[in-house]
């Protein structure tokens, strides 16, 4: 069984088709990167898969559970780190983590333990008692991802996790994401070629709502006879034509 099985997923906003008949399978424990230029349909896809947006047609099964008919069950096994940093600003790092643990059903004692584990795993010990609003952008993002992982999701959606971060903060976050490989199925959307190449097992390239190509960075580069992955991406993202 695939961890994620997407079948002809489509979403329209009035006359604009944001996602157009997307079909894709993602393996258990795989880190899959969705690449595309702005408006390609990446975030809309993530929002449908995380039950934030209802598809107009099609469906997706997450560990066998339908996003259309079983959203409550899907929400129990997923977590999301949204594009913008999503933290409660006046709560401390520890309180933010305990809040999310409790929202996903942990009792007080378990929430405290899970929060401490995340604080250690994401190197947040120094700032555990600081309010989220006082943290740097990079630390807020690390907290945001720790909040997404505290519920021990089977499937994790990371929407542009390093957007706007400096190179050091980005590298630190990559290191945290790399540790998830094989343990959690991750769909990561990004604008950065280097990030997709560095982190993902496979890459899907979207343009104008359609999935244009799927493969490893190497496979995609070879398929386009390109000098590097960036050139392959530009070829695929701009060529249009049929979806895979």
């Amino acid at each position, binding site marked *: 069984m695939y961890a994620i099985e997407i079948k002809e997923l489509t979403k329209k*906003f009035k006359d604009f088709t944001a996602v157009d008949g997307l079909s894709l399978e993602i393996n258990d424990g795989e880190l899959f990167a969705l690449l595309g230029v702005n408006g390609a349909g990446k975030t809309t896809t993530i929002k449908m898969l995380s039950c934030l947006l209802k598809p107009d047609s099609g469906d997706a099964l997450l560990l066998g559970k339908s996003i259309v008919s079983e959203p409550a069950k899907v929400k129990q096994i997923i977590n*999301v780190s949204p594009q913008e940093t*999503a933290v409660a*600003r006046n709560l401390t790092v520890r309180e933010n983590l305990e*809040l999310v643990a409790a929202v996903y059903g942990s009792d007080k004692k378990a929430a405290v333990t899970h929060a401490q584990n995340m604080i250690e795993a994401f190197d947040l010990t120094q700032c555990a008692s600081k309010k989220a609003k006082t943290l740097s952008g990079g630390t807020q993002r690390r907290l945001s991802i720790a909040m997404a992982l505290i519920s021990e999701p089977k499937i994790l959606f990371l929407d542009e996790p390093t957007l706007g971060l400096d190179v050091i903060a980005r590298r630190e976050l990559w290191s945290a994401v790399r540790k998830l490989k094989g343990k959690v199925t991750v769909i990561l959307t990004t604008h950065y070629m280097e990030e997709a190449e560095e982190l993902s097992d496979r890459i899907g390239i979207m343009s104008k709502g359609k999935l244009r190509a799927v493969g490893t960075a190497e496979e995609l580069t070879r398929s386009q006879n390109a000098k590097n992955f960036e050139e392959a991406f530009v070829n695929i993202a701009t060529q249009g034509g049929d979806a895979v």
Partner: protein
Amino acid sequence: MKRMLAFSSRNVKEMLRDPLTVAFGIGFPVAVLLLLTAIQSNVPVDLFNLEKLTPGIAVFGLSFVSLFSATLISKDRSTSFLMRLFASPLSSVDFILGYTLPMLPIAIAQSVVCFGVAMILGLTPTLNIIKVLIVLLPADILFIAIGLLVGSIFNDKQVGGLCGALLTNLTAWLSGTWFDLELVGGAFKTASYALPFARAVDASRLALSGGQGVFTHLVWVIGYAAVVMVLAVLAFRKKMNGENR
């Protein structure tokens, strides 16, 4: 229930850790009470007797509760924090109760502080004050519902204008707190009594004085509270289903 309580606990912390909330929520109504009492001691005006003034200020203070709750919700909506929670197992009922329930003790505490200060200034302590706090409960719910409704529809800047300026002024002008509505009369008085603010003030004044007819006014406040709460729940659920479109 456990999930909702965790969410509501966060909302309490988020509000009470904002110094402006405490300053305006508690400080401003108390400052107005002190100011008008000082005026009353120099130029006696019947309307500014503590027995009449305190219920009016208590209702006026509730407009800040709307502002806090609307600001919290609209700020949550403007960041991705609410998106994160919408993707969690929290239900729409958890959200609505999580936003509204913590506001109730804050609203009651605000009224208690208001009457506490009034007693220091000379209001006779009677059991009727407890009765007023009970009579104010539908008004508490009404103002919380207004906050939920406005916060679900508008952004945080618009909320500042609507609740911070419009609602506080409506509550002030149309409640009969600052001037006697009988003296203005006509359409102004009719409009004031068609809205819940003057009704809430009159019900509280009657409860404080031990007078009859509290429920005649209270039924208007209960009606408005029920209607606005239903509208607020519908607006929030609509946002929850289509927030990210």
